[in-house]
């Protein structure tokens, strides 16, 4: 079955469903209420008739038929009287206020089962035009065969039924309007917002990566959905920016050595080089490509760490042992370049993480510190210490080298950033970036501060030493 387009919207379907459900509920409720009311009114009518009948019975016992007829005549004339009728055994009406009655009613004994039609005296003028009334009655046979009928008009229950029917119609009408309103508000409103979200989504897919989904500020489900999607988009954008930055940097920083490599090869081929010159050129080319590979590996590693790649072999890392290892590894180098590499206070501490990565990060920082303090005039030195500060573990490498100008402090841990004055020194420019990536991967951070003179690099592991990879 093909639905009209408007029915294909969720809102229209929901409205239709609600309409049907409400209608069913209302119908059941109304039917129950009306049958209950009718039953109660009927009961009341029967009680009234019963009371009348008892009064007539008393009169009949006291004064026989004449007394009965007298009482009936009196009562029948009262305004708003019930129906009274006395008939002979053949059904001929003798007394009372009923002119004619539906045939067969007088043959009943006891309560009439169904409402019957009748006509009172005084209504005969326009008899044809007026509808006959319906009534409920008790029919009794007197000992002499005469028939006595006392009844009550059913005008009230009938009126009630009319009211109920009207109410039902009104309810249906209101439900119809309600459904339309629901469709209009839920449908139009919700659809509009969903359309806005899809529209924004299309724009973003179309290349507007800075675009975000609309948030109305009402804090409803749509807002929550949009907010979550926006957070996701922001993360994607950040990763994307990172990727773009990497590719820019690769382009910039790998192109230079590649060009150099190519130039050397070209230069080696030019002229008539001796075998020794060939050899030197080739060795230089290999050294250059090794440096390229090193840089490339570092970029890859940083990217993977930043992407939150999780190291399987995360275990306890003994930071004190790591300090000892790295200092031991760098001590001869420091001595050779005339830098005093010393170990200060070292707390006993273990963090959850990857020993290789932490070791590599620390060795990068120490490497840097040695490299940059080596030139300083008065007793260049590097001090490594591990302390607890607050709940955090602080692995600090402090040197008394030239330090970093305050305006560059933030920048140096970005990928490839090497301050101009250090361009001539060896290194990929990725040491501190890698250290920072490792620290962030472990849920910690890398802090740089000026020491006057010199630089202090702090690798800070958060106190609860959370497992990495948790966001």
């Amino acid at each position: 079955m093909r639905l009209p387009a408007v029915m294909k919207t969720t809102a229209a379907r929901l409205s239709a469903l609600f309409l049907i459900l409400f209608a069913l509920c209302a119908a059941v409720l109304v039917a129950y209420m009306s049958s209950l009311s009718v039953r109660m009114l009927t009961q009341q009518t029967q009680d009234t008739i019963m009371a009348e009948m008892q009064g007539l019975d008393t009169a009949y016992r006291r004064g026989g038929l004449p007394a009965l007829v007298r009482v009936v005549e009196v009562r029948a004339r009262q305004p708003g009287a019930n129906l009274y009728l006395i008939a002979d055994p053949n059904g001929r009406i003798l007394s009372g206020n009923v002119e004619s009655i539906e045939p067969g009613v007088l043959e009943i004994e006891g309560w009439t089962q169904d409402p019957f039609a009748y006509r009172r005296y005084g209504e005969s003028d326009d008899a044809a035009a007026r509808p006959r009334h319906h009534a409920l009655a008790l029919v009794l046979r007197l000992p002499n065969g005469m028939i006595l009928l006392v009844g009550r008009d059913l005008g009230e229950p009938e009126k009630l039924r009319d009211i109920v029917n009207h109410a039902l119609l009104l309810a249906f009408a209101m439900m119809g309007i309600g459904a339309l309103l629901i469709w209009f508000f839920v449908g139009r409103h919700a659809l509009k917002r969903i359309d806005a979200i899809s529209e924004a989504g299309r724009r973003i897919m179309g290349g507007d990566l800075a675009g975000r989904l609309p948030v109305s500020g009402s804090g409803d489900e749509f807002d929550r959905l949009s907010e979550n999607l926006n957070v996701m988009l922001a993360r994607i954008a950040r990763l994307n920016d990172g990727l773009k930055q990497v590719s820019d940097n690769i382009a910039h920083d790998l192109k230079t050595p590649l060009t150099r490599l190519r130039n050397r090869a070209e230069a080696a081929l030019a002229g008539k080089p001796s075998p020794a010159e060939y050899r030197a050129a080739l060795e230089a080319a290999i050294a250059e490509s090794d440096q390229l590979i090193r840089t490339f590996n570092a970029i890859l590693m940083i990217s993977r760490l930043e992407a939150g790649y999780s190291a399987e072999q995360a275990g306890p890392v003994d930071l004190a042992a790591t300090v000892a290892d790295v200092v031991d590894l760098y001590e001869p180098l420091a001595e050779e370049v005339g830098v005093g590499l010393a170990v200060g206070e070292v707390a006993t501490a273990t963090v959850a993480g990857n020993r290789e990565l932490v070791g590599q990060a620390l060795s990068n920082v120490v490497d840097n510190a040695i490299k940059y303090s080596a030139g300083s005039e008065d007793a260049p030195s590097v001090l490594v210490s591990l302390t607890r500060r607050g709940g955090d573990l602080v692995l600090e490498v402090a040197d008394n080298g030239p330090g970093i100008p305050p305006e560059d402090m933030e920048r140096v841990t970005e990928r490839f950033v090497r301050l101009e004055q250090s361009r001539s020194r060896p290194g990929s420019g990725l040491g501190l970036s890698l250290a920072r990536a490792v620290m962030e991967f472990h849920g910690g951070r890398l802090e740089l501060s000026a020491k006057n003179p010199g630089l202090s690099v702090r690798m800070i592991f958060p106190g609860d030493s959370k497992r990495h990879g948790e966001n």
Partner: protein
Amino acid sequence: MKILVIEDDREAADYLKKALAEAGHTAHVAFDGEAGFALAVEGDYDVLVVDRMLPRRDGLSVIAELRARNVGTPVLILSALGEVDDRVTGLRAGGDDYLTKPYAFSELLARIEVLERRTGAREVETHYRVGDLELDRLSHTVKRAGQEIPLQPREFRLLEYLMRHAGQVVTRTMLLENVWDYHFDPQTNVIDVHVSRLRGKIEKGFGAPVLHTVRGAGYMLKAG
């Protein structure tokens, strides 16, 4: 030495075959996992060089299957992945050493030669001797020409590793891995400084040099 290279990149495989031949080894090449596995089971190889990503059957599954069949040939895994974890999974699958692409051939050759030697029983030796240089693991002493040389613990381990692989080229990364148990690439020549300091202790005042630098590769401890 008879070496099987399982590597799907034909150019790389041919280069390896030629270079290994020049180094005095016989190399056979298989271009996919299945063929490599069949050759490794049949042939009597001293060392297998297995690339991790291979067509038809990946390198790790080849190694695991070989180990399951009790083929104990030493395996050097080559990988372009090169994460800390990849190394662990590779070694867990039954590999004996792990080398990340791109690598220097000298590094590969040094590792292959060390691997081959590993099958011998040299590891359990307690006393090494190279020329007039002696190292005793039990008493933790080093002597040259009968004269005791005091060494720092790390220097002792460095010398111990060099002596265990005397006559073989040992690269800087092999030293960092085996003496310091770190697998990263140090930024500067930290290892060289350690070696030259050790060299100063074991050569200064003695006759012939024993700790030689192999250009573009690493170091070798050799008498005479």
